[in-house]
């Protein structure tokens, strides 16, 4: 059946998330200045289970369907996208863990729990020469080297899941852990991030000829490829859902502001240049949300088309997020540009989100290649 009605359980969970989002909104500026979400928020997020929704039950997670998670994440990010992106846990690696069992890696999830992790995916899309990682075979083992592009969660991570090609071009997934004293075999390069998502632990990973034991290469070849494809689709949907939350925040705020702000003797909402823009923002947000839910429902049903739908949802969310949050600033005029109002932060966070999660064109080309057959390999 075609239905847009959430289950009662989803409604209740989303209601809790919405209440929490109000606290998140309130604390967002202070968190941004501190460079991380406050301890109070982190503790509450953990207590409410919002950091383990994607994790499988074998890793003490809630193992929620994507459709449910999408609604909850949207509700949370209605508070503030940047803060939610800084929540502790396995960041996007949770989708790797969620799909590990299907990839025959059940044991991988057993001891992971909600350990701060990051998913350093060096294989998705094209990388610039200075942003490449390399896995070489050496003396019966492996060595990992290179620099990643900026990734979410790297700054806080105690464990890295690295997707990288070996010296024969095969995809591989490597797990690196911090030592007991907290020392990591990788270096974190924080750089000078000012744009947005300043609480999300965004940083680069530098690896200098790090020895990798065989058992740290947890998947290689076709199994790694299939695993990564499945995990990426989930990440794309979950990130797109977060983006929709930020969009809805901008739509609601701009509607409220323009309903009250007066110019030329009347509420500016009465000028169609304003009200039509608000309508466009609302339409764009609804369109993006529906694409997210559609992809989520397909993936939940193990429909093979879900991987392609996730690419479209991700590409659309990226475009829509930029459009909606930018117009959020525009409609507030000069007030939108200053930090007395939240919309400028949402625009910065939105652009950072769009940049971090891959180029929109890249997702579309991936989709097209799968449709037409890459390089003419298949129809």
């Amino acid at each position, binding site marked *: 059946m075609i239905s847009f009605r959430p289950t009662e359980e989803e409604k209740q969970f989303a209601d809790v998330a919405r209440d929490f989002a109000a606290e998140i909104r309130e604390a967002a500026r202070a968190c941004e200045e501190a460079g991380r979400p406050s301890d109070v928020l982190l503790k509450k997020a953990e207590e409410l289970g919002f950091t383990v929704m994607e994790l499988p039950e074998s890793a003490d997670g809630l193992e929620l369907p994507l*459709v449910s998670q999408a609604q909850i994440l949207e509700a949370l990010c209605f508070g503030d996208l940047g803060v939610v992106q800084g929540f502790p846990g396995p960041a996007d690696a949770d989708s790797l863990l969620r799909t590990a069992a299907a990839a025959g890696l059940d044991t991988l999830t057993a001891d992971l729990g909600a350990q701060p992790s990051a998913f350093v995916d060096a294989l998705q899309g094209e990388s610039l020469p200075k942003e490449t990682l390399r896995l070489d075979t050496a003396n019966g083992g492996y060595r990992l080297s290179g620099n990643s592009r900026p990734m979410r969660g790297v700054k806080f991570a105690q464990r890295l899941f690295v997707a990288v090609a070996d010296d024969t071009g095969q995809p591989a997934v490597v797990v690196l852990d911090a030592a007991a004293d907290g020392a990591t075999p990788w270096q974190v390069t924080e750089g000078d991030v000012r744009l947005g998502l300043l609480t999300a632990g965004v940083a680069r990973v530098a690896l200098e000829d790090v020895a990798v034991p065989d058992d740290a290469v947890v998947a290689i070849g076709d199994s790694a490829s299939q695993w990564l494809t499945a995990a990426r689709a989930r990440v794309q949907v979950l990130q797109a859902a977060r983006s929709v939350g930020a969009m809805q925040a901008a739509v609601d705020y701009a509607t409220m502001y323009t309903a009250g702000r007066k110019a030329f003797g009347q509420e500016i909402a009465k000028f169609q240049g304003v009200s039509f823009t608000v309508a466009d923002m609302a339409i764009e947000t609804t369109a993006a949300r529906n694409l997210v839910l559609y992809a989520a429902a397909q993936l939940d049903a193990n429909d093979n088309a879900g991987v392609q739908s996730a690419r479209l949802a991700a590409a659309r969310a990226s475009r829509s997020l930029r459009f909606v949050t930018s117009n959020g600033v525009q409609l507030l005029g000069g007030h939108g540009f200053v930090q007395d109002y939240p919309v400028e932060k949402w625009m910065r966070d939105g652009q950072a989100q769009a940049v971090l999660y891959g180029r929109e064109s890249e997702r579309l080309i991936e989709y097209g290649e799968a*449709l*037409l057959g890459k390089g003419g390999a298949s129809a």
Partner: protein
Amino acid sequence: MIEFKLTPAQKQMKDLTHWFAANEMRPISMLSDKLGKVPDEWLDKVNKMGITLAAGGGMGGSGSGSGSSGAKKDDADVDPEVKRQTNRTTVIAAEEVGWGDPAIALTLPGPGLGGPPVQGSGTPEQKQRFLSIFTKDKPRWGAYALTEPEAGSDVSNIRTTAQKVDGGYVINGQKIFITNGGRASWVVVFATVDRSAGRAGHRAFVVEQGTPGFRCSRLAHKMGMRASETAELVFEDCFVPDENLLGGEEYYAKRAEGKSGFQVAMATFDNTRPVVAAMATGIAQAAYDYTLDFVRKEYPKSGRLYQLACEKLADMEQTIQAGRLLTWEAAWKADIGQPNSKEAAMCKAYAGKNALEVCETCLELLGPAGIDGHIVEKLYRDVKVYDIFEGTNQVQHLIVARRLYDAFELRI
């Protein structure tokens, strides 16, 4: 539970309609565009097959109306989401006939856009009298006449008058852009009984073909949708009996606030806009499918052109799917009996505009060859009006914005 699977009945309807679109409509698509009409023998044939146009886009059996919303009384104890799926099924079918040929689709025999107001507001006697004529013996049409030279999107400004006289009303005025208006057996006509009363003065009448004072003055020539008849209608001292006032005198008298013809018209739009959006989505899908096939056959398998095609095809697919889902959402809300003005306007605004953009992109991918003998250029000409009729894109934006500002009690 949020899900997007068609029911077995909807799947069957979709498959059947698609088969009809591919095997009966497409073969005469380009010919009908060239002739500026759908061949009479074809219309007779499909009418004998029992194929009719219901609610402006969906295909159904004779006399079927599918545009009314809300659960029936005897369904009150059953979840309307499950029990009543008419609007969802209608938009699924409408997309397929739009895919086949939108101009032929609007020419399929049946009550067309006139069906929903009769079904939704007519008395039992009127429903019987006007909807039972769609039988297999010969093709018949209904029509919906709202637009006037000075009242297009601003339907509240209609000037056609209905003066109360003994036993009925005398209608005077002009209507334009009326689909199937010349050939229709009856037309639902909106007129005002009192211009000073504004919208409350509006009434809907069913005017039958052959009524003295009622005539079709002209058929319009158009950039697209050429096979679909678009009529101008004139009413000169046209007497319409009381029994043709839609809903009857009591219908208006009973309501303290007086449910006006305007409200009837607007309620119709909430049901028909998703259908129009669905047809626009079908047109876009048709252009996309044709272009995808062209690219697969004609394009190189690598290089700049290939990359360009990959990106543009994906972008179109995303756009089409977004329009489809917005439309489903509006239809779903109608099915469960919730107000859906905002969603209906959203899907119409989005699908109408973006279907044109999809057709433009398809023409770009076809390149210069696209101008010569490919159906995509016809679809491009056809689809433009989907961003205009049933309320222009700008009107849809106004409706969406009004609903958004309702929360702040601000009337814009």
